[in-house]
């Protein structure tokens, strides 16, 4: 009997997975249904807005919307050729700009084309200003009279290229590249290449902060893990309390401390350690110090919780086997803290990449990070495309390190307090 039955069961083995899936489906769907509201909420209020924002990095509506007739007229024109387009294109442009003047969209168009080639704004605006002066007859010479560049194909090539719904312009600019008149991708001029520098600075500051928190945090976590329970509890409180204090308040505190007339300078002067006030605000040093202060708990806590789980006997065993103290620490203890170090450092690095408040308040112009530039492009320049391209850059870095974090540490291991 046993024999025959075991044959039956092995015969149905290929269907086992299917049967399992079928049997478990109601339970899975029930579990999913519970998480669905939160998932949908996050998709609508968080993921979708970010996704939508990022698409503005390639969206290119200005020429299409403002110069529809021109775009149509240029469709058949060979942009690589040596000649400017025919009279029809000039007529279309004139008609489009007349319309744009009425709709007040000419300025936006000028601004957009100016990104591609300096001087485009004034060229467009001068045509708009002189709309009333155009006479019947050949238009090309009249345009050329306003600005001889209208007779060259380069300018028209730019308009034609930007009639496309998407543009690589912002993304290329974000990594200091550009498309020349012929469409080839080249590096931008030395004096305009700023964005890779900002990217490098952002990574460098985040790295500095991560390194500093590790340097300060590792021994601290070690001491807390060794301290008697009562003292350790008190020390832990001193780590957790700053975590709970608002980031803005902590940054404010640093502003007060670092000001030229601030607490640190007063103390240094009073102690006679310096004879003149030091410039601490608006410096890289100030920014990194404040950020280190804010991030320190994030690095300490995971390291501490790993250290606490390392049994005391480990070091004793190493010593009994003849390892000298430092060797025992370095070869036996330190490697076991690695998961905590990884978790803490990755978290601090990820969070440091996105800093905005602290560099804005404590840092000088040369300490502004990617987030600050994104905000500036939105608030001051109203250049959404550039903001989105930089945001894309920041997001790619953040997400790749987040994926590394998920891989090495796991979302389930995140603990709070």
């Amino acid at each position, binding site marked *: 009997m*046993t024999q025959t039955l*075991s044959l039956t069961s092995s015969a149905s083995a290929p269907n086992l997975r299917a049967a399992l899936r079928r049997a478990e489906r109601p339970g899975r769907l029930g579990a999913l249904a519970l998480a669905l509201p939160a998932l949908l909420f996050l998709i609508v209020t968080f993921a979708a807005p970010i996704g939508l924002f990022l698409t503005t990095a390639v969206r290119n509506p200005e020429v299409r919307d403002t110069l529809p007739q021109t775009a149509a007229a240029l469709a058949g024109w060979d942009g690589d050729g040596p000649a400017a387009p025919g009279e029809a294109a000039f007529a279309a442009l004139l008609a489009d700009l007349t319309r744009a003047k009425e709709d007040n969209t000419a300025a936006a168009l000028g601004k957009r084309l100016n990104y591609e080639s300096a001087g485009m704004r004034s060229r467009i605006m001068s045509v708009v200003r002189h709309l009333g002066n155009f006479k019947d007859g050949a238009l090309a010479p009249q345009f050329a009279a306003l600005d001889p560049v209208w007779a060259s194909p380069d300018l028209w090539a730019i308009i034609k290229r930007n009639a496309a719904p998407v543009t690589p312009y912002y993304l290329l600019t974000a990594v200091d590249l550009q498309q020349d008149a012929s469409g080839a991708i080249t590096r931008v001029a030395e004096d305009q290449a700023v964005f890779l520098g900002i990217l490098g600075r952002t990574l460098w500051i985040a790295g500095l902060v991560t390194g500093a928190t590790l340097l300060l945090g590792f021994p601290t976590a070690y001491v807390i893990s060794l301290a008697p329970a009562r003292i350790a509890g008190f020390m832990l409180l001193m780590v957790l309390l700053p975590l709970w204090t608002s980031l803005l308040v902590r940054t404010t505190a640093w502003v007060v401390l670092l000001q030229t007339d601030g607490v640190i300078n007063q103390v240094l002067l009073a102690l006679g350690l310096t004879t003149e006030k030091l410039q601490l605000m608006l410096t890289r040093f100030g920014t990194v110090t404040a950020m280190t202060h804010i991030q320190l708990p994030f690095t300490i806590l995971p390291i501490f919780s790993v250290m606490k789980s390392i049994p005391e006997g480990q070091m004793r065993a190493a010593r009994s086997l003849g390892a000298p103290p430092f060797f025992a620490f370095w070869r036996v203890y330190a490697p076991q803290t690695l998961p905590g170090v990884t978790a803490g450092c990755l978290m601090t690095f990820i969070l440091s990449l996105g800093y905005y408040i602290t560099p804005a308040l404590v840092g000088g112009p040369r300490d502004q990070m990617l987030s600050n530039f994104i905000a500036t492009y939105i608030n001051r320049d109203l250049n959404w495309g550039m903001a989105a391209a930089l945001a894309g850059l920041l997001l790619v870095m953040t997400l790749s390190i987040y994926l590394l974090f998920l891989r090495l540490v796991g979302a389930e291991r995140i603990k709070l307090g």
Partner: protein
Amino acid sequence: MNTMTLERRRLGDEPSPTPAASPMVVFERVQKTYDGRTLVVEDLNLAVRRGEFLTMLGPSGSGKTTTLMMLGGFEQPTNGRILLEGQAVERLPPERRDIGFVFQNYALFPHMTVADNVGFPLRYRGIRGAEAARRVAEALAMVRLDGLGERRPAQLSGGQQQRVALARAMVFKPKLILMDEPLGALDKQLREHMQIEIRRIQQQLGITMVYVTHDQSEALTMSDRIAVFNDGRIQQLSDPVTLYDRPENRFVAGFIGDNNTLPCEFLGSENGLAFVRMKDGTRLAASGPAHPARSDLTVSLRPERLGLDDAGSAENRIKARVLDKTFLGDRVRLTLEAFGTERLVASLPAAEGAAVLPGRDVGMAFSAADCRLLAR
């Protein structure tokens, strides 16, 4: 799909062991896998009779808890079906099955008093107020916990917690109570005491119980029938005496009680007895469930069924050398060498064994019924 139903019908047509009462629970070709690869329950066919105390006994990981969880409605069978009083229960959620469940760690609600714990099932059956209080008091009295109703579970000893769990599972008079190693966390004395208590309550209420344990003596003491689990299948299902005396395979023989397992060769059968040849050529008369001419046969022989040769009626007599003798108080334990170089253990009453001396030869005898011829 079609063949499945056909086979199922054929299975159902087999004569039921108790034609009188319809079974309380029937497992039909139940399979369970958690990961889609290994079958934790391979092919379970089992009928639990009304009012019986059925124990599932088996080593760790043999699928006992899983089986109980499927019956309780906490896990879905991957294949096959479970009938409760003739009704298929796949779609029946646990709260509608009317089954009492005692968990291994008791699962008492820590934020409720003992009385609230025991009264919990009554709340969902519309029993309130004085009637509920009376039923709770009655249940607590049944498990001898009168007066502890206002305590929290954390304020009780392990044995008391166990009784609360029992009272809570019985108070709503379920048709069936399932227990998953309910005594596993108790010390030996308390465990033996509770075994008797549980059995008393079960008989008093006439309730059907399915009980899981990996403690064989517990199973032998308490059960009407025992299902021995191993590798996700039932190895043998029978009453304790049959299980002990007439194991049907080597796993059961080895798992329950001590056994000497000796390789042998099948010669033939005659008058319901099987004849085998041992390694050194000795012929023995044996009994067993089936006597197929297979190569991996053994005989199993319990130490206490091996006696000194007193020229009685036992079918088998052998000569053996005494290698070692251990005094155990009421009994002595002999390590013997027989059938050439085989080792076997015998256990004799202390008085009988007094004369046996290590290093000497001794004559031993045992009946064919105690010498079980088993396949794997």
